[in-house]
Every structure is written in structure tokens, then in C-alpha cells.
């Protein structure tokens, strides 16, 4: 059988690409490699900046592995990814990597160079290669030949091979599990396209992500609402998914859904330990990275990321809170169940067992928040989340402070003269202001969100800095329980 060029492969530098479009009219050269093969790495590093024939690298890897390979080798060529089960490599009968295959004009296969053979590859590419040893080096077995070994890969390893993971084991999304997750919902209904690659978030794909994440069917309405909220243009998930900032989405759940889905809003509310919290947030992340293509090191360009990007879902402890919950503040009925998505950095814990007045404690919270995003970047334009523990909330409530009063006091406490803020990364406002002009940490007090969560003993609150400058706003959606 003559191998074809109709397959569509994920690309490291953009949307998936048909092989025919990658090689053009031909002739061209396909170079098959994989990330565990030192000879492949050698070949990629020796590729010239330009070749007379179009050159396309095909990596037999998962997307994260291919991204790591490209970062190490920095090849001067487009990299497409032949993910498991390596259909293109099988079709082209590539049993060793590296293998360079000439694609003739019109698409048929021509001669090939197997392993690293400097002279032969130079002849195929029509360009000189660096005159450095070794001149020849044997290659490695193609990935798909491993799968033919007796025993093969087990199901969980298969998920890693496909790249359907965030680095932790996942639950394989069998047809039966996905149908149970859907619970009769229309699998084709779309929640929208997920940036950056624009994969369509059909309920079936969202349910597959929920299965992978370890959700139970009673968690799915929360996942559905969270994906829907994240795709609201006001959230700007495109920017959040591709930014070099560490921030990721946090899901805040309010209302009866917390109990129905078995979420923990009490002791250890920020995790770990509760399946619902851990899996709902993880399902949203998997939808963003798999359906949306925001793969760390690929199109997710976050310099560091943060541990909460695996998934972060918290529930407000409405029972221990002296205040109206977040969803009521945002215009929903107290009996409604909602999810609110917010883009945040990792949390900064704030210990305070000594403050005896509301003013003193508000100052402590404000000082902690001053360090977020960047210590001299004042004001911040995007939203900061304070998770106030029940003991701290009780102290504020005893002083007669509601959430709005606490928001105002934190805002007023986080203020400095511009002259103190001209260090490192600061804002145009600070640079242009007189030394004694007062600058607040936030451009608007409404950029401060407050929820109450955590155990009833212990005085530890937390502040989540914003994904600043991203133009993102929190988005709340009501949870739909019916199908």
C-alpha cells in the first residue's frame, strides 16, 4: 500500500495540520524521530537552518514529550506529532528512528535514510551537514514497534502514551463511562470552542475529560457549568491559556451543589483530600489542555505554572460564614447552585492568631496582598481572591463588618506613596505620579473578592493574586441539574 498524506497531525507551532499541507506540492522530506532516541536528538540538532526541499519533522510522541524534544533540539523545521497509536509512522512503515523519507512530487514515497548517516542525509536533503563526528550512528526502534511486544501497555500507560493526562494517572474514558457521565445529556451539544486551538467542547468531550479526571456523574453538572463559564469571552480563557504568567482558573462553588457533589468547604478546603474538589477542577484543566490544546510547554507558555493548575475547585463554607455567599453577592438566589471561575496565581497563606481588632486583621490581609503579582506593581487591574477562614470572618463580623466593609478596609489599607514604589517592575501610573501621591494596590475596590472557607479552628486565611493585565473577569454560571 502506498502511504498517504491525508492524516492530520497536531503541530507544535499551531493548529493541527494535514500532512499534505505540511509538505506542499512535493518533493519534500519527512524526518521521523522520537524523544527517547539519542540519535534522533543528534539528527535534529544537526539540521541546517534552511533546506532546498521542505522538511517536516514527525515526532512519535505525546504532545508534551514532543514539546520537550523540540525545546532540547531546537530543530530548524516544523514539528508535527504522531501521537499514539502512531498511525502515520505505521502507514509509512517506519520501524527505526531517525528515518528520513523522500516524498516525491505527487506524494509517493522515495528513497529513505535510516539512522544517522551524515552523507546520505545530506544527499537526500541536498544540503551540506556539519562536518562533526559521528558520521554514522544507528537509530532506535519506532514507538509503535514497542507496542507489538508481548504484554503491551496496560490501559493507564496507554492514556499517558496518548497524552491524555496532566502528568497523573487518569481514568480511561471508555464509551460506557462517558455515557454514564453524560447521564442522558445530548453528547453533541457544544459549549463553544476552546482556545487556543479551538477544539469544540461538545458535552461528550467534556464528559471524557470528567471521566479522565476521576469525576463521578454527580460532579458533571459542575464541570459543565465551569467549562461554560470559562468560555465566556469576559473570562478571556485564550489569554489565560497561553500566557507566560503562572495563573490558572480556580472554580468556586456555591449553593446546594456543594453538598450534592460532596465538596469540602471546611477543614482543608483548598485541598487535598476530597474527590469532588480535586476532580472538578482537574476536569476543567483537562478540557483546556486536551480539547483546547493548552499543553504546558506547547501552546501553554507559562514560565513556572503552579501546583493549583492541575485543578483547583473550592466551595464556600456558607454555613460558617457570617456573610452572604459569593453567588448572592453576584446576583443569584441563595438557593441556587453556581460555579464562579476566576483566574488566579498560587495562594499565599496568611497566618494571624494575634490581631484583636478588625482594623488590625484587615491590615494584615492587605499587607499580604501587597506582595502578590509583583511587589511594586501598583495598581493591579484584575481580580484578587481572599479566602477568609471562619475564625477571621467571625472577628470581622463581631466588629459589625460585612463583606463590603472588609473589601473597603483592605483596599484603603493597601496604599503607598508613589515614591516608595519605583523599584523593579512598576506601572506607568507610578512612574508618572509625584513622589507623595497615594497609589492603591488595586485600581478599584471591586477587584477584591471575598469568600469564607476552611475549618472552624485555626486562623489561616489566604490570598490568591490575580492574572494581572489579562483583562479577565470572574464569571458565574448556574448549575443545571436536569439533562
Amino acid at each position, binding site marked *: 500500500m502506498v502511504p498517504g498524506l491525508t492524516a*492530520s497531525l497536531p503541530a507544535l507551532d*499551531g*493548529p*493541527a*495540520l*494535514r500532512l499534505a*499541507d*505540511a509538505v*506542499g506540492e512535493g518533493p519534500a522530506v519527512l524526518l521521523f524521530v522520537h524523544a527517547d532516541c539519542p540519535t534522533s536528538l543528534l539528527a535534529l540538532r544537526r539540521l541546517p537552518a534552511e533546506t532546498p526541499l521542505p522538511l517536516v519533522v514527525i515526532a512519535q510522541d505525546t504532545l508534551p514529550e514532543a514539546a520537550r524534544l523540540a525545546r532540547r533540539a531546537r530543530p530548524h523545521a516544523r514539528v508535527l506529532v504522531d501521537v499514539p497509536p502512531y498511525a502515520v509512522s505505521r502507514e509509512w512503515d517506519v520501524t527505526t528512528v531517525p528515518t528520513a523519507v523522500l516524498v516525491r512530487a505527487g506524494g509517493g514515497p522515495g528513497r529513505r535514510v535510516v539512522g544517522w548517516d551524515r552523507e546520505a542525509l545530506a544527499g537526500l536533503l541536498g544540503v551540506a551537514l556539519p562536518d562533526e563526528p559521528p558520521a554514522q550512528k544507528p537509530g532506535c526502534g519506532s514507538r509503535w514497534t514497542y507496542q507489538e511486544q508481548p504484554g503491551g501497555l496496560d*490501559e493507564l500507560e496507554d492514556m499517558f502514551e496518548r497524552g*491524555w493526562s496532566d502528568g497523573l494517572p487518569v481514568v*480511561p*474514558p*471508555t*464509551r460506557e463511562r*462517558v455515557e454514564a457521565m453524560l447521564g442522558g445529556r445530548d453528547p453533541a451539544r457544544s459549549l463553544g470552542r476552546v*482556545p487556543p*486551538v*479551538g*477544539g*469544540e467542547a461538545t458535552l*461528550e*468531550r467534556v*464528559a*471524557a*475529560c470528567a*471521566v*479522565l479526571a476521576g469525576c463521578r456523574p454527580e460532579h458533571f453538572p459542575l464541570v459543565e457549568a465551569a467549562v461554560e463559564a470559562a468560555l465566556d469571552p469576559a473570562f*478571556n480563557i*485564550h*489569554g489565560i491559556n497561553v*500566557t*507566560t504568567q503562572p495563573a490558572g482558573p480556580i472554580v468556586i462553588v456555591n449553593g446546594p451543589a456543594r453538598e450534592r457533589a460532596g465538596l469540602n468547604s471546611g477543614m482543608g478546603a483548598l485541598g487535598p483530600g476530597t474527590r469532588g474538589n480535586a476532580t472538578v477542577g482537574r476536569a476543567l484543566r*483537562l*478540557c483546556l489542555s*486536551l*480539547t483546547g*490544546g493548552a499543553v504546558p510547554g506547547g501552546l501553554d507558555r507559562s514560565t513556572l505554572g503552579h501546583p493549583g493548575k492541575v485543578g483547583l475547585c473550592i466551595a464556600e463554607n456558607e454555613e460558617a460564614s457570617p456573610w452572604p455567599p459569593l453567588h448572592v453577592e453576584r446576583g443569584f438566589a441563595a438557593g441556587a447552585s453556581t460555579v464562579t471561575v476566576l483566574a488566579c496565581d498560587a495562594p499565599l497563606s496568611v497566618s494571624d492568631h494575634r490581631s484583636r481588632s478588625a482594623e488590625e486583621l484587615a491590615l494584615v490581609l492587605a499587607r499580604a496582598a501587597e506582595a502578590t503579582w509583583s511587589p511594586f506593581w501598583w495598581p493591579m487591574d484584575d481580580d484578587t481572591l481572599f479566602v477568609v477562614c471562619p475564625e477571621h470572618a467571625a472577628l470581622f463580623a463581631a466588629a459589625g463588618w460585612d463583606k463590603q466593609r472588609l473589601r473597603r478596609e483592605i483596599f484603603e489599607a493597601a496604599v503607598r506613596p508613589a515614591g516608595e514604589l519605583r523599584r523593579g517592575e512598576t506601572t506607568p501610573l507610578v512612574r508618572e505620579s509625584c513622589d507623595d501621591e497615594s497609589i492603591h494596590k488595586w485600581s478599584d475596590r471591586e477587584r477584591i473578592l471575598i469568600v469564607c472557607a476552611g475549618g472552624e479552628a485555626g486562623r489561616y486565611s489566604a490570598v490568591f493574586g490575580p492574572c494581572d*493585565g*489579562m*483583562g*479577565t473577569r470572574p464569571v458565574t454560571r448556574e448549575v443545571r441539574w436536569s439533562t
Partner: protein
Amino acid sequence: MEYVSPLDPRVAQPVRPAPRPAGLAGRTVVLLDIRKARGDEFLDRLAELLHERGAATVRMAKETFSKPASGEVVAAVPLHGDLAVEALAD
């Protein structure tokens, strides 16, 4: 075993790169500022180097760095030049 894929196979939007130009002299290069901090400094220097090589430059800008360029900006870039450089900075 049959699995339900979380991936959308229909995201393919092939874009074939245009052929590289033979030279820069007499060409007009659109310098697209994505509005990241100091992107303008990068493009200023690039404009100097392009002018030395005989190219003209036109400056355009995205609405904000944090979102994709609007359709208007994408459509306008080829109307104003033969080549384009998009600045990423910080």
C-alpha cells in the same frame, strides 16, 4: 478498547507559509506591535535595521496583547505591506 477522545480532530486549519522573499530592498514591512511592554523599543530597533536594508516600514498594533488580534487588524496587515513582523516583548 474503544475510548471517547477529548480531542477535536477538526481543529486543522492549514496555513501554508508564504515563500521567503528574495530580498528586503523596496519592500514594505508591517511591524505589528502586540502592545506588550517594551515591544515598541524592539520594533524601533528592527525598523532601523530594515531601513538600512532599503525596506520601508509601517507600524500597526493589536488592540491588546492578551487576546488574539481582531479580524479587522488581521485583514488590514496585508493591505499595508508585503511582509509582516509581529513583536513579542517584555
